[in-house]
Every structure is written in C-alpha cells, then in structure tokens.
C-alpha cells in the first residue's frame, strides 16, 4: 500500500533513508575517518622521527639507568636497567594510589556523615573544609603539605621522638623495623586462622540467626578472634619480634624503617583532596534515600544503627559507588603530580629521568600512558564488579 504512494527513488536515496542502513553507513564512515586520521598522524610522526635520526625502539630499557631512586621496594641501584627503574616507579605509583584510596575513602565517609550532622559546628567545619579543599588545585595542596613537612618539622638532630623509638623529622618518619624470629610465624599463622574463622563464623552466625533468631555479637567476636588470639599468642611466645630502632648517626637517622616526606606529603594531599569530593558524594548518596525509608523503619521499631545498616546504606551505596569509581581514578591519575615534589613514581622515573637521559620521548610516554591505562582499567573493573554485586534489583 505504501509503495503505491512512495515515489520512485534511486538505490542510494532508499538506503540512506532507511533507518537501519543509515546508522550502519554513518558508523562505517566514522570508523574510516578515525582510522585514517590516526594513520596519518602516526605516519607523520614516524617520518619526522626518522628525519632526526630516531627510530622507535625499546632497546634502551635494558641499558643501565645510572640514577638513584630513594624509595624502592625491589632491589635497585644506579647500575640497574631503565626497565627496573620503571618497575620501581610503578610500584611507587601503586603504593601511593592504594594508600590514598584507602585514606580518602575513610576520610570521605566521615566528612559526608559529619556534613549531615545535626550539630551546627560539626557540619559547618566539614563544610568549610570541603569548600576550601575542593576549590584549590590539588598541585597546590601537594606543594603546601610538602612545604609544611620540610619547613616546619625539625631537622633530625632535634627530632620529635615518640617514646624514643620513632622519630618525626623533616627527612621523614623514622620508625622501628620489625625483625621476625622464627616463632613469629606461629603468631602470623594464628592471625590467618582467625581471619578464616571469622569469615566462617559470619556465615555460621547468619545460619543460627535464621534457625533460632539468636543474634551473635559477630563484630566483637571477630575483633576478639583477629586481634585477641594472635595478641595472646604473641605474649605467650615471649614477644618473638625484635625491633630495630633507628639511631641518629651524623646528620640523619640510620636503621629502622623510614617513610619519606615526599610520600607522606603526596599521600596526605591526595587523600585530603579526594576525600572532600567523596564526602560530597557520600552526603548526596545518603540524602538520595527518601526520608520515608528511615521513618518506615523507625515505625517498625528498628533501631537507628540497624536502620542505617539494613535500609539506608544498601540504598545509598547504589548512588555512591559509580561516582566513587571516578574519584578513585582521579586520585590515581593525580598521583602523577608526584613529580612536583620529587616522589619517584612512573612519571618521575621512566617518564622523567629515563626520558631525559635517553631522549626516547615517544617510547617513554607510551609506556607511561599504557601503565596508567592498565591501572585505571583494573580499578574500574574492580569497582564495576563491586557495583554489580550491590546493584538495585528493584524490578
């Protein structure tokens, strides 16, 4: 019937005006244009690199790096390769990103809850902190915290001692280093056993509750098992750890463990900055749960804490987790500002000193780019998995 009305048209016109074919055509054109653009850019870069006598090769990675890195978790010295310098850099980035995410999450949840507090002073203090922190670039926070540590903490000779075992100085926090005796592994094994027991006990307690209605104090029993059991064993076995206490030798402390000021500054600044955003996310998540939910739970006689655990948080998490993921990614990427205070992360090692020494900017930057990409995708994947596990089933 429609054919009777439709005027005769050529093939192109008919394809172009078909809803499905048109979208396929547009996608094909877009892909061709994008690929063409990149092919052009890459070809140009290759030609230009060729012209100044630089190939594209990763051979430099095996050469000696000939620079030192003060914080390394794997064997490293100036005779190690650029590749090894890169590994040290990644580990340093992962360390500060991981510690930052943990601290930012804890601080952020506190800030979010404080901001909702009915106490005028508490909520205003949280508000002022959040507004100040959010509105100043994170680079300034990093420089500020670093400056505070370097300039306001004492030099090693006048270190602030904590019971003469740990020392806070402008060269970092020197703390005792544990030296494990063989018996310590018994304590450690007990700790692992207690963790496994706790996981099992949670299920068991849930089952008992389902069957009899009896509520075990799961939290306190878990705390008792995980902390108490290894603690008692530790003392019964005669404290099988000796501590290597740092000592002042010359101008600095030797021995013990040191947490460097660059790490502390970066860690505090990144977490403090991200915590402000997380605080707002948490606040909005809690507000997003209709107050009627709290009232309904109250009317049923459910206590305030239980209401939070059983009704509000499960619903708030669904609003909180997706933007929380981007905050974690932001923090990880912002850690590249480490270079401003000389914390040796990926950018400062392979993307900084190695690049300058070898002149391999394309290769070094590609490596840095790919490493950040992998790290970010891993975080996203983990958070997406978590998000799916708490997703609103609702319908």
């Amino acid at each position: 019937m429609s054919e009777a009305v439709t005027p005769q048209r050529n093939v192109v016109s008919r394809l172009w005006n078909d809803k499905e074919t048109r979208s396929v055509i547009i996608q094909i054109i877009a892909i061709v244009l994008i690929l063409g653009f990149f092919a052009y850019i890459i070809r140009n870069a290759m030609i230009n690199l060729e012209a100044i006598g630089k190939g594209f090769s990763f051979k430099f990675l095996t050469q000696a790096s000939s620079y030192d890195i003060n914080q390394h978790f794997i064997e490293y010295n100036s005779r190690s390769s650029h590749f090894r310098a890169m590994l040290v850099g990644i580990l340093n980035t992962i360390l500060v990103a991981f510690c930052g995410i943990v601290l930012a999450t804890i601080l952020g949840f506190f800030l979010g809850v404080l901001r909702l507090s009915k106490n005028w002073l508490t909520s205003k203090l949280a508000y002022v902190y959040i507004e100040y922190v959010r509105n100043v670039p994170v680079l300034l926070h990093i420089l500020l915290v670093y400056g505070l540590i370097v300039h306001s903490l004492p030099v090693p000779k006048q270190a602030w001692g904590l019971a003469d075992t740990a020392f806070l100085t402008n060269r970092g926090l020197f703390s005792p280093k544990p030296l494990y005796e063989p018996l310590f592994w018994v304590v450690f094994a007990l700790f692992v056993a207690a963790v496994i027991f706790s996981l099992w006990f949670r299920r068991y307690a849930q089952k008992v509750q389902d069957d009899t209605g009896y509520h075990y104090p799961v939290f306190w029993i878990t705390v008792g098992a995980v902390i108490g059991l290894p603690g008692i064993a530790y003392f019964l076995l005669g404290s099988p750890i000796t501590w290597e206490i740092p000592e002042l030798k010359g101008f600095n402390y030797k021995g013990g463990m040191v947490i460097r000021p660059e790490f502390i500054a970066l860690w505090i600044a990144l977490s403090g900055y991200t915590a402000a955003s997380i605080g707002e996310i948490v606040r909005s998540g809690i507000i997003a749960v209709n107050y009627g939910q709290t009232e309904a739970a109250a009317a049923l006689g459910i206590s305030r804490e239980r209401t939070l655990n059983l009704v509000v948080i499960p619903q708030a998490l669904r609003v909180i987790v997706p933007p929380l993921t981007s905050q974690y990614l932001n923090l990880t990427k912002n850690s590249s500002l480490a270079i401003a205070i000389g914390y040796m992360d990926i950018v400062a090692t392979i993307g900084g000193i190695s690049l300058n020494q070898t002149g391999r900017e394309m290769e070094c930057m590609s490596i840095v780019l790919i490493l950040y990409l992998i790290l970010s995708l891993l975080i996203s994947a983990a958070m997406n998995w978590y998000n799916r596990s708490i997703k609103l089933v609702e319908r």
Partner: protein
Amino acid sequence: MNEATNPNPSSEDYAVVIRDMHKWYGQFHVLKDINLLVTRGEKIVVCGPSGSGKSTMIRCINRLEEHQQGHIIVDGTELTNDLKNIEVVRREVGMVFQHFNLFPHLTVLENCTLAPIWVRKMPKLEAEGIAMQYLERVKIPDQANKYPGQLSGGQQQRVAIARSLCMKPRIMLFDEPTSALDPEMIKEVLDVMIELANEGMTMLCVTHEMGFAKTVADRVIFMDGGEIIEENNPAEFFENAQHERTKLFLSQILEH
C-alpha cells in the same frame, strides 16, 4: 469531649491517652491542647482540611514527631525522650504511610520479615511463615518474591499493611493510606482495612474516605487549625454536625 474532662483516667485502661498535648514547629503552633482517649479495640477516623495537624497528631503517637508539652501514653508507656520507651511503643504500634515507604531493595517477603527478624529476634523460617500468613490475608501471597517496584500502588499498600501486621501490633495508625492511589485501587486497600477492623484491631486512621468512616469508625474526629473541633459517632457526625467549620468541611468533601 467528655472523656477529656475525666480528671485522672487510668492510662492502663486505654490504648492511647493524649492529655493537654501541644506541639510547635519553631514558632508555629501546629497542635493546640489535644486531648484524646482511645479505648482498646476502638476505631477512630480523623479528618479535616489539609494543614489541620491530623497527620502530625497521629505521627506523635509513635513519636515520628515529638510533642513539646502534655502527655502521650501509648499502651501504658509514656512517650518521653527515653529511647527505650520509644522502642517499646514502636514495637507495639504499626503504621501505614500515604506513600507506602516499602524498602525497594528488599522483596515483598523480606520487607515483611525484616523487623520480626531484627527486632523480635525471630527465626527466619518462623518470620517467613507469619509473613506468608499476612500476605495471604491481604490477598497477595503470589507476589512474595517480587520487588515493590513490580507491584501496583494498591498492592504495595497492602504489602505495607502486611509488613506492619507481621510485628503483631496492638494499635494500627493509618496516615492517609489511600490518598496516593488510583480510584480503582482504593477499594482493595479499604477492604483489607475493614477486615482488620472487624477483627478488633485498635485503629486510628487519617482519611477522607467518608464511606469507610461510616462503616467502620466508632468515632470521627474533626480537626482544624491544630485543634480538635468536634468528635462524635459517625451517624451524628455526618447528619448533625455541631460546628460551622465541620459543616463547611463536610459540604465541601461530600459535594462530589
């Protein structure tokens, strides 16, 4: 208000005793000198124009709202700042809200078993048994494993009633339970409420369903401007209202 003149009613005899109760929101005097005695098994319908304080009054009975002056004694327990007392009262008083307020992240069955499990410390199977029993009474046992979002408004409100009943309350409060429903769903909810009334539940119900008031109520209370203006049995109340304001209100809602 003959009961209110009784100088010292024994609070044990009544399901709810409200004496000389006042409430303010900041400067605004929402409830003025409320006196109300509810005997066990009594069904009371509260009506009045919007903003008259009727919802606020019944929300004071399980302390979703605090009163600032006077006394409220529910089932022998006085409501004060004592959190334990509030918990005791809330356990015995069920409430149904205008907007249902079901927990969207839990199934219908879980909505019903949450409080029995966590407040009454009931074994899961027993709680589920009771929940199914009440879901059958509100005629939706087949929806037990669905989520609230999958149900119609009328069904959701019936789940909300079942959820309250699972705590085996002695008193039920209804805060405009049918106001958010489509007309064809009002009946199914009212039917459940009438059945509940016939079983002897003490009920306080804020509603504009005058048909319901006529069939079920022992007393109808009319509120305006934060005061109880008039209270009477339904026959007298609808046929022979004493106050001008009551007459005006009745003429407005009965017109349609």
